């Protein structure tokens, strides 16, 4: 009996001795035409938002880049990243209630606190515009959500304007801000999902008007191709199905396409979209991958190349799609099961693979390219 216990203990001990939890390194990368910063959302309330940095000069990927450069954490659930000018990058750190600024080398250079529950960003180089789900902006209160204007020189909020419930995506065109209102808290709050796109004059931060789309829950990023915007509607899970809205900012008229574009990007001419519809009955996800010519409203069923399209279609959970404004290269991420490290993929505009899939961190959601220094 004693002998049996001893043997079992030994076996258990040996089986448990394999405590090597080190991460397998991603395949090596050669020189790249541009560096990439990837914003990993982490898990909500776990204070584990992270930046990953792929260095064009060395081909080296550094996960947890922000904290290794600065010696402190980025915060909880970073939600967007944008380059303001040659020396300044802004990150909306949603649940930390801050906009964090960094230099292109990753060093932190200030933060703005007065936009809690911040969501997405856009900029004209002089000012930064941020949407927020909250109702407070400094001493100002709003019934619904708002958009705040931050002076890049002082990093202070200089104006704000109330819009719809839970405003999410934001884009700037000809001095006007287009804000997609989601009403994302409709599951609990007394209002319904929003169907409106608010237009705000960026100079005066006064609301010009609303475009009513009849498409509920406008959420996700907004991409711009010339005078056109691509906006996703998640639908309401029952009667209203997900849609893609193509808005002409010159006329404020829009067209609808009968598929979602949860992820969308533009090369300045076309929109590239990845959408998924989750069947409530089975929990299974059906993906929609398209290219949209906003001028003609022609819709293609391919992104980059047939191989890339097929690859995207095979991913467990595509989590961001980004087209470099410098090289036209396609980058996308896969969040996999949302609890393990996600992956980064890169392809040239001709469909050539730039590097093997790179392992990032939990929920890699936002990519930013920087020209090679």
């Amino acid at each position: 009996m004693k002998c049996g216990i001893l043997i079992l203990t030994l076996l258990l001990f040996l089986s448990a001795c394999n405590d090597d939890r080190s991460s397998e390194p991603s395949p090596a990368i050669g020189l790249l035409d541009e560096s990439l910063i990837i914003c990993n959302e982490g898990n909500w309330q776990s204070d584990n938002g992270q930046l990953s940095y792929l260095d064009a000069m060395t081909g080296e990927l550094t996960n947890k880049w922000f904290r290794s450069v600065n010696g402190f954490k980025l915060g909880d659930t970073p939600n967007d990243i944008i380059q303001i000018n040659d020396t300044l990058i802004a990150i909306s750190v949603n649940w930390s209630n801050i906009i964090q600024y960094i230099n292109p080398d990753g060093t932190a250079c200030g933060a703005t606190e007065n936009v809690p529950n911040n969501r997405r960003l856009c900029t004209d180089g002089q000012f930064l515009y941020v949407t927020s789900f909250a109702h407070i902006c400094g001493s100002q209160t709003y019934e619904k959500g708002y958009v705040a204007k931050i002076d890049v020189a002082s990093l202070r909020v200089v104006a704000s304007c109330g819009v719809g419930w839970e405003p999410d995506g934001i884009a700037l065109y000809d001095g006007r801000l287009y804000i997609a209102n989601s009403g994302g808290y409709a599951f609990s709050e007394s209002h319904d999902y929003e169907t409106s796109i608010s237009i705000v004059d960026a100079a005066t931060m006064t609301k010009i008007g609303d475009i009513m789309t009849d498409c509920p829950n406008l959420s996700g990023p907004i991409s711009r191709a010339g005078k056109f915007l691509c906006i996703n509607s998640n639908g309401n899970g029952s009667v209203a199905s997900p849609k893609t809205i193509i808005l002409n900012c010159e006329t404020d008229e829009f067209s609808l396409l009968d598929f979602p574009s949860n992820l969308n990007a533009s090369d300045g001419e076309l929109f590239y979209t990845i959408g998924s519809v989750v069947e409530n009955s089975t929990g299974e996800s059906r993906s929609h991958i398209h290219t949209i010519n906003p001028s003609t409203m022609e819709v293609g069923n391919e992104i980059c190349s047939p191989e890339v399209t097929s690859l995207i279609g095979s991913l467990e959970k595509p989590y961001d799609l980004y087209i470099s404004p410098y090289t036209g290269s396609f980058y996308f991420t896969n969040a996999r099961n949302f609890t393990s490290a996600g992956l980064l993929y890169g392809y040239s505009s001709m469909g050539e693979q730039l590097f093997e899939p790179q392992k990032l961190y939990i929920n890699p959601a936002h990519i930013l390219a920087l020209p090679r220094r």
Partner: protein
Amino acid sequence: MFLDSKYYGDASSYAMLAFDRRHLFSLLIASLINLSSLFAQSSLSDTIAISEVVVRSARDVVSQQRLTHDALRSLPSNNIADALKYMAGVQIKDYGGLGGQKTVNVRSLGSQHVGVYIDGVRITNVQNGTVDLGKYSLSTLESVSLYNANKNESLMMASEYASASTIYLQSHRPDSSSCQLSASVASFNTYKANATIAYKRYALLDCAFTTTKGDYPFEYHTQYEDTTGRRSNSDFKMCRIEGSAFLGGLSFHAYYYNSERGLPGGIVRRLSGLYTDVGREWDRNLFAQMAFRKRFDSIALRSIVKYSNDYLHYRSDYDNNIAVHSNNKYRQQDLYGAVASSYDNGNWSLSASSDLRWSDLKCMAKTTNYITRVDSKSSLAIFYSRGLMNFSSSALFTYVADHHEDEKTTMSHFAYNALFSWRINKWTLRSFYKSVFRVPTLNDLYYNIVGNSNLKPEYTKQLDVGATYNSAWFDVQCDFYYNRIDNRIVALPLKGSYQWTMLNYGRTRCLGVDISAKMNYKWHSLFISGTFQDDRNKTNPKEDAYNDYVAYSPRLSLSAIYSLQVRRLTASLSHIFVDKRYWTTENAIEEPLEAYNCTDVKVGFSLHPLSVEVECQDIFDVRYEMIQRWPMPGRRFSATLKFEL
């Protein structure tokens, strides 16, 4: 024939309506039970005095850990979770402070697979399936027992077979009239008052009131942060009134609990405390239960009825809250009836039982939802004992029917277990196999956009081999176990970061060994326990997280309690060590939570009718967390003055 049954007739006829005719097994069991009920009724009519049932039990067949009344009183503990953490194989999830939710997980099977029973009746939460152990007091308990698998008595209710592990809270049964009043003052503006009155051997009344600001300090000092602060919005106030009455084989228990608490969030990077996410919760729980046992020669009968009414109010619609504004109320009712009967015939006995539970849940959130659930369980068990050998086996049939928005969905399943033991002198060798399944909770199925009405049940399988050594002053037991969970019910953000969906996803496997020992010598007693386990993710071999340790499962945990009782002086010293725990599914991407040691001490002095107790928890002020970013309070003191007649 069902309608005539005094103790079960109405319930069983209701059960039969809910049953599908195909379920012949449950029909057989119900019929068997009803026969015994009829027998019991006819016998009762001739009986005036009700004597207590002596329960035949092969107590060593399953591994059992037990803290008795004296041991519980010697612990510097506030609640049942504090006591259970000393037992082998137990992992507590504690969000910190008196108001922080405390749930228990045994052998890494998940908190929803642990059945918690007060005087043999299961505490249920049809909404989310977990029991917040912070709501239940130690002061009224005779003992706290943990069984892996389940007890091995012949008069078990069907629902007692339905959990992977079972925790029994046995109410203290007074032996004389007494009155005890106590008042405590403790760290973080904590004040407690308690009154316990006992009347002979018949009744016990216990009232408690607690209030705390809960603003304990916390610290994080790592390579990447240097954070200090105080918990805010963590105040807690509660009132509890509990009473028990006993008369022969009849026992009655009533419970009322009312609380208000702040819900502090996880500690995340903030530049200041300017903006907050403020949530508050009000709970009200009420239940009344009555149990009856009776033996008539070779036939024994046990029956239970229970009604519970729970109310939960969550609010976050405050102007200064920067997150979602909610004002949700939930009302649950639960009506439970159960009967078990057994037949003993020398070496073997047969037991049959059937439970019927009707629950409803009314969610008054943005829209009002009303859901009802009928949960019926029937079991058939056989016990065989010959010489030094014991064997038992049971089959459990569960049938669940939900009614939601004019739709009816049903689930049914068979589960089995088998237990075996062999006694050799002071040693007992034993083994068990048990399979159970967990029905998705109403939150899993129907909660707003999260719920998935197509969820399948979650399955667990357990295999255990162990041995116990008993002597006059020294007991030790050791168990090796293998667990497997299939079809885990998890939440995944399939519709975007803020829109979660419940899914059946994942499989885990756990290998482990539990060891516990008890020693008593004169004034001294010592309880030591330890768990070594290897709990791995076995979901998908293609995933990087495959074969990684399951989040929050430590490989090693140790505990010890030393108690001394010399005339008027009592003292105890307790210590816990919990090894590092990974908190991410893929272990390699984050540093684990650090291992921690926590030492508590308590000293009491009695000079009748007064006694004083002073305690210090976490005397070395070790800062640790059980849940990532939810810090536990550090060193804290408490002084209690008691007056006893």
